[in-house]
C-alpha cells in the first residue's frame, strides 16, 4: 500500500496518484491542477490587459476578447481559486481535527477527478470550435444567442466540475461533524476548520441552484426545451436569479477559507492567540447565513422594483458588520503580539488594508441608486478584484508558503517569496485601484476596446503595467517552487517554530495514516497548549493498536471519465437538428452524439454499480509498522 510507494518508479507513482484516496495526496492533486489553471487564467488576464493597454488596440479581435474574459473569469473562480482552496482544506482539516482521513475518502477522490475532467472539458473548447463568450455569468439571452458550441462547453464543463465540488462539500461537512478527535469540541476547532465547515455548508446549499440553472441552459441549447426562449414563453431572468443565488454565496465560499488561512497565520506569526475567537466563529456563521439573502444586489438594474432593491440593499449592508468584526479582531490579534515578518505573514498583513478597500466599495454598491452608476462598469471590476485578489489570492499565496512544508516537507525560499510579495502587491494595487476611477468616468466593463479621447488612456495603461508586474511576480513564484523542489531540503516537525494547531504536531513528511495514536485535545490551539504544558508531545487518546484505512481505488477516475465522455455526446446532440436553437442548428449533424452520450453514462453508471456491489472494506495498519515508523522518526530527529 501507500507505505511502499517510496521504492516505486514513475509509473507506479502516477498510478498511486490516479487511485489515491489519501487526503494529503488529493490535496497535492488539487494544488497541481488548480495551479495549472491559475496560470492559464493568468495568461488570459494578460491577454485582456494587453488588448486594453492602449485605445483601439487590435491585439485581440472582439470575439476572441469575449472568449478571453469569459474563460478568465470561469477558470479563475471554478478551476483555480476553489480547487486551490480545496487543496489547503484537504491538506489541513483532517490534521487539524485529529483524523486519519476524511469521512469519505472515495468521494474525496471522486471530487478531485470530476473537477479535473470538468476543467479539461471546459478548456478543450479552445481547440474545438471556440470558447464560451457570454461572460462568466453567461446571461441567458446572450448565451442562447451565442453561435457555436462555446456555451455548451461552459455549461457541461461546469456541471461536471460542480458535481465534484458539491461532493467535496458534503465530505468536509461530514468529516468535521463526525471525525473530530476526543476533546476537539466545536469551540476548540481552529478557524481554518471552522471556515471550511461554513464554506462547505454554503457549497451544499449554493451549488444545487447552479446545477439547475446549468441544466436549464443545457436543455435549451442541446435538447430543445424553452426555458429561456421568450417566443415560447421562456424567461431569461430565471437564469440571473439562479446564477446569483449560487453566485453570491460562491464569493463567501471563496473568501471564508481564505479568512481561515489568514486567521491561522496571524495567530502563528504574532505568537498570540486569536483575539475574539468566539466572535470570529459567529461572524463566520453570520456571513455564511447572510450570503444567501443578498443575491439580488447583483441585479439592481434588472428592474425588480424599488421594494426588492431596497430590501436587498439593506441586507447587503448588514454583511459589512460581521466582516468588520473580523477585520478588527485580526488587528487586535496582531496588537501586542510579536510579529515575525515571514512571507505568509506579509500576505496576511497586506490583506487587511486591501480587503478593507474591497469591502467598503462593496458597501458603496449596496446603496442601490448609486449602484445604478457602478453596475457593469469598471468600478465593479475593481471592486471584485480587490475582494478576490486582495482576499482570496493573497490567502492562497499566503497558504501556499505557510502550508508548503506541511504538504511537501520542504520550505519555499523566503527571499524569493518576499520579492514575489512586493512585486505582486504593488502590481495588484496598480492594476485595480485605478479601475475604480475608470468605472466612475463611464467606462463599461467587458469592452474589447475603447475609443481615444474619452480620458481612459492613461489609466488603462497604468492598469496594464500593474498586471504585468503581477505576472512577473507569479513567474518568480514558479521559479521559487521549481528551485525548492530541486533542492529538496527537508525540514522537520513544526518548521515555522510557532505552530499552534494540531497539524504542526506531526512529523514531516506526515505519515500516510496521519496519527499513530489519535491525540487528546485539551483546548484551543491544541499543540500550543502541549508545547507549554507537555514539552510539545500530544497526549494520545487511545492505546497504540492496529487501525483501519481505506483502499485505493481507480473507480473515481473511471466515473469522472464517463461523464467527460458523455459531455461530448450531449454537446453535439443538437448540432444541425431542425428543432435546435439558431445558434447550433446550422452546424453539421453528428449522428454519433446520442451513442457517445449513452456510452459515457454507461461507463459512469457501470462504475457506480461496481462500487456498490463490491465489498471494499479497506485494510489494517499494524501496530508493528507504526512502531517502526515512530522509531525511525525519532532517529531522524536526532
Amino acid at each position, binding site marked *: 500500500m501507500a507505505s511502499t510507494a517510496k521504492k516505486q518508479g514513475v509509473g507506479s507513482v502516477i498510478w498511486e496518484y490516479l487511485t489515491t484516496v489519501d487526503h494529503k495526496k488529493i490535496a497535492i492533486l488539487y494544488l497541481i491542477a488548480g495551479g495549472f489553471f491559475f496560470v492559464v487564467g493568468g495568461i488570459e488576464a494578460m491577454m485582456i490587459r494587453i488588448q486594453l493597454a*492602449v485605445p483601439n488596440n487590435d491585439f485581440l479581435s472582439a470575439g476572441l476578447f469575449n472568449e478571453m474574459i469569459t474563460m478568465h473569469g470561469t477558470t479563475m473562480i471554478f478551476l483555480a481559486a476553489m480547487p486551490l482552496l480545496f487543496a489547503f482544506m484537504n491538506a489541513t482539516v483532517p490534521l487539524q481535527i485529529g483524523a486519519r482521513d476524511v469521512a469519505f475518502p472515495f468521494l474525496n477522490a471522486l471530487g478531485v477527478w470530476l473537477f479535473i475532467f470538468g476543467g479539461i472539458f471546459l478548456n478543450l473548447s479552445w481547440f474545438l470550435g471556440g470558447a464560451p463568450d457570454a461572460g462568466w455569468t453567461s446571461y441567458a439571452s446572450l448565451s442562447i444567442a451565442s453561435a457555436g458550441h462555446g456555451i455548451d462547453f461552459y455549461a457541461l464543463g461546469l456541471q461536471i466540475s460542480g458535481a465534484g465540488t458539491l461532493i467535496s462539500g458534503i465530505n468536509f461537512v461530514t468529516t468535521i461533524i463526525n471525525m473530530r478527535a476526543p476533546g476537539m469540541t466545536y469551540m476548540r476547532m481552529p478557524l481554518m476548520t471552522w471556515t471550511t465547515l461554513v464554506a462547505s455548508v454554503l457549497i451544499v446549499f449554493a451549488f444545487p441552484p447552479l446545477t439547475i440553472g446549468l441544466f436549464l441552459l443545457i436543455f435549451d441549447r442541446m435538447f430543445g426545451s424553452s426555458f429561456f426562449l421568450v417566443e415560447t414563453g421562456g424567461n431569461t431572468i430565471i437564469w440571473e436569479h439562479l446564477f446569483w443565488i449560487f453566485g453570491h454565496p460562491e464569493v463567501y465560499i471563496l473568501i471564508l477559507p481564505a479568512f481561515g488561512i489568514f486567521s491561522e497565520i496571524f495567530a502563528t506569526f504574532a505568537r498570540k492567540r486569536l483575539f475574539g475567537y468566539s466572535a470570529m466563529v459567529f461572524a463566520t456563521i453570520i456571513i455564511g447565513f447572510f450570503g444567501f439573502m443578498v443575491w439580488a444586489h447583483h441585479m439592481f438594474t434588472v428592474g425588480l422594483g424599488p421594494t426588492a432593491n431596497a430590501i436587498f*440593499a439593506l441586507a447587503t449592508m448588514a454583511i459589512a458588520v460581521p466582516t468588520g468584526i473580523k477585520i478588527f479582531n485580526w488587528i487586535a490579534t496582531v496588537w501586542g503580539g510579536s510579529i515575525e515578518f515571514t512571507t505568509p505573514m506579509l500576505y496576511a498583513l497586506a490583506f487587511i488594508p486591501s480587503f478593507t478597500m474591497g469591502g467598503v466599495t462593496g458597501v458603496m454598491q449596496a446603496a442601490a441608486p448609486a449602484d445604478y452608476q457602478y453596475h457593469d462598469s469598471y468600478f465593479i471590476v475593481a471592486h471584485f478584484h480587490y475582494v478576490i485578489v486582495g482576499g482570496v489570492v493573497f490567502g492562497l499565496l499566503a497558504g501556499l508558503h505557510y502550508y508548503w512544508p506541511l504538504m511537501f516537507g520542504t520550505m519555499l525560499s523566503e527571499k524569493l517569496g518576499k520579492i514575489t510579495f512586493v512585486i505582486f502587491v504593488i502590481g495588484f494595487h496598480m492594476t485595480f485601484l485605478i479601475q475604480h476611477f475608470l468605472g466612475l468616468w463611464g467606462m463599461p466593463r467587458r469592452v474589447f476596446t475603447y475609443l481615444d479621447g474619452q480620458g481612459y488612456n492613461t489609466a488603462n495603461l497604468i492598469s496594464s503595467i500593474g498586471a504585468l508586474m503581477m505576472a512577473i511576480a507569479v513567474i518568480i513564484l514558479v521559479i521559487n517552487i521549481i528551485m525548492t523542489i530541486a533542492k529538496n531540503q527537508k525540514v522537520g516537525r513544526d518548521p515555522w517554530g510557532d505552530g499552534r494547531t494540531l497539524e504542526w504536531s506531526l512529523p514531516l513528511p506526515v505519515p500516510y495514516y496521519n496519527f499513530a495514536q489519535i491525540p487528546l485535545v485539551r483546548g484551543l490551539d491544541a499543540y500550543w497548549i502541549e508545547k507549554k504544558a507537555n514539552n510539545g508531545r500530544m497526549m494520545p487518546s487511545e492505546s497504540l493498536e492496529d487501525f483501519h484505512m481505506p483502499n485505493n481505488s481507480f473507480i473515481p477516475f473511471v466515473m469522472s471519465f464517463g461523464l467527460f465522455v458523455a459531455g461530448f455526446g450531449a454537446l453535439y446532440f443538437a448540432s444541425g437538428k431542425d428543432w435546435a436553437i439558431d445558434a447550433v442548428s446550422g452546424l453539421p449533424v453528428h449522428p454519433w452524439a446520442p451513442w457517445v452520450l449513452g456510452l459515457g453514462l454507461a461507463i459512469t453508471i457501470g462504475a457506480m454499480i461496481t462500487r456498490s456491489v463490491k465489498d471494499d472494506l479497506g485494510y489494517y495498519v499494524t501496530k508493528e509498522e507504526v512502531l517502526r515508523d515512530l522509531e525511525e522518526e525519532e532517529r531522524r530527529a536526532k
Partner: protein
Amino acid sequence: MKNRWMNAKWLGLITILAAFASGCGKNHLSTLRPAGEVGQEQFDLMLLSIIIMLFVVIAVSIVFTIAVVKSRRKNMGEDFEPKDIAGNHTLEVIWTAIPIILLIILAVPTVYLTFKQSDTEASENDAGEVNSEEVVINVTANQYWWEFEYPNVGVVTGQELVVPTDTKVYFNLQASDVKHSFWVPAAGGKMDTNVEGINSFYLTFDDEKAQDSNRLFYGKCAELCGPSHALMDFKVKTLPEDEYNQWLADMKSIEEPVQASASDAAEGQEIFNNSCIGCHAVTPTGAGAQGPNLTNFGDRELIAGYLAHSEENLINWISDPEAFKPDNKMTGAYDLTDEEIASVAAYLMELKVEEGSGDVETLRQNAEESSEEGSTESSGESEGSAEEASSEEPAAEGEESTEEASPESGEEASEEASSEPSEESASDSEESTSESDEEGGN
C-alpha cells in the same frame, strides 16, 4: 520590507488623489459630472458613501499601522511571549456598534432614493397608456444599435437620442434580441433592457450642464451583448424644450422620404430603395425595424454609433461593416459595387430634416457667444472637434502611431482636451482608413 511597501502605497494614493482632483472625467460621459437631477442625487449618494468609507479605510489603516509597527518582533525581542487575550467585550461592542451607525446613515438616503427614482407613474395615464403630457421615449436595444421611438408624436429615430432639457424624460426600455443595458453616465445610472417585459425609469438633463458638454452626451450599452458590445455607443442630443418640439415637428412632417437632389444621390436613392429599405426606413415610422431608422441620417453626429460623421467613413462602413462592428446584422445583407456604395452614401448624407432645427452646431455657437467671457475652458468648438477626431480613430490610427503617440496624446486629450494633436492625427490618417480597418476588424 513592510515600510517600503507602505510608502509605495501612500505614494500611489497621493498620485491618485492628484489625478482625482485634476479630473473627474469628461463632462459628457463621467458619472462624477452629473448633468441632471437623477445623476446629481446618485452622485451625492456616492459622495456620502465615499466619505463614510474613506473614514473607515483611514481608521482601519491607522490602527493597523500602529499595531504592526508596535508589535514587530525586532521591538519585542526574540523570546518575547505575548500575553494571550481571549477577547474584550467593550472593544467588541464598540466595533460592532460603530459600523452599524455608519450603515444606518447610509441606509436612509439609499432607501429614500431607491423609491424616489423608481417612480415613473406619471409616464402612464390611468388607462395604462403613454401619458401624452409627459416626454416619454421607447427605447429598443438591438445588436448593436438603438432605436428611439417618441410614442406621443409617432416619430421613430435611431442611434441618436434627442431629449429636451430641464424636464423629466421617461424611458420605456426593452431589447429585441439579447439583453442590453441603457446607460447615459452623465445623466444617471443605467437600466437593463430585458428581452421580456419593459423597464421604465426617468432621467433629467439640466440645460446649463448640457451646454457645458456642447449639448451632447455619450450613451453606452453596459451589458455584454456580443462581440461589438464595446461599440454600441449612442449620442444624446439635449435641446431646449422649444427646439426639441420643433425638431419633433420637423421629423413628424416627413411623410415621404426626402428626395435626393444631386445626381449621384438620386442614383443612390434608387439603389437604396432596392437594397436597403427592407431594414432601414427613411421616414420616421416603423418601430421595431431590422435596422436603424435613417430619416435624419445627414444630421447625425456619428456613423454606426461611433465613427465620425463623414462621407468617407460612411463608404467604408457600408463596404465592410464587419471590420467596424464584428457580428453586426448588416454584413452580407446586400451586394453592392463600390460605385453603388458611393452613391448610396451620397444619398444618405443628404437625408436631413429641415436645416437649422435641432442643429446642435447652431445652438453651440449661440452658447459660445454668450459664454465668451465665461470660464468653461473645456467647452466650445475645440473639444467638439477633439471628440469627433478621436471618435474616428478606430478607423484611423495606424499601428506605429498607437504605440507612441496614443498614450501621450491620449493623456493630454483626457486632461486638457487639447484639440491639436488628435485633430491632426485624425485628418492625416483618414486616407489610410480602409486598410488599417481591415486589420482592426479581423
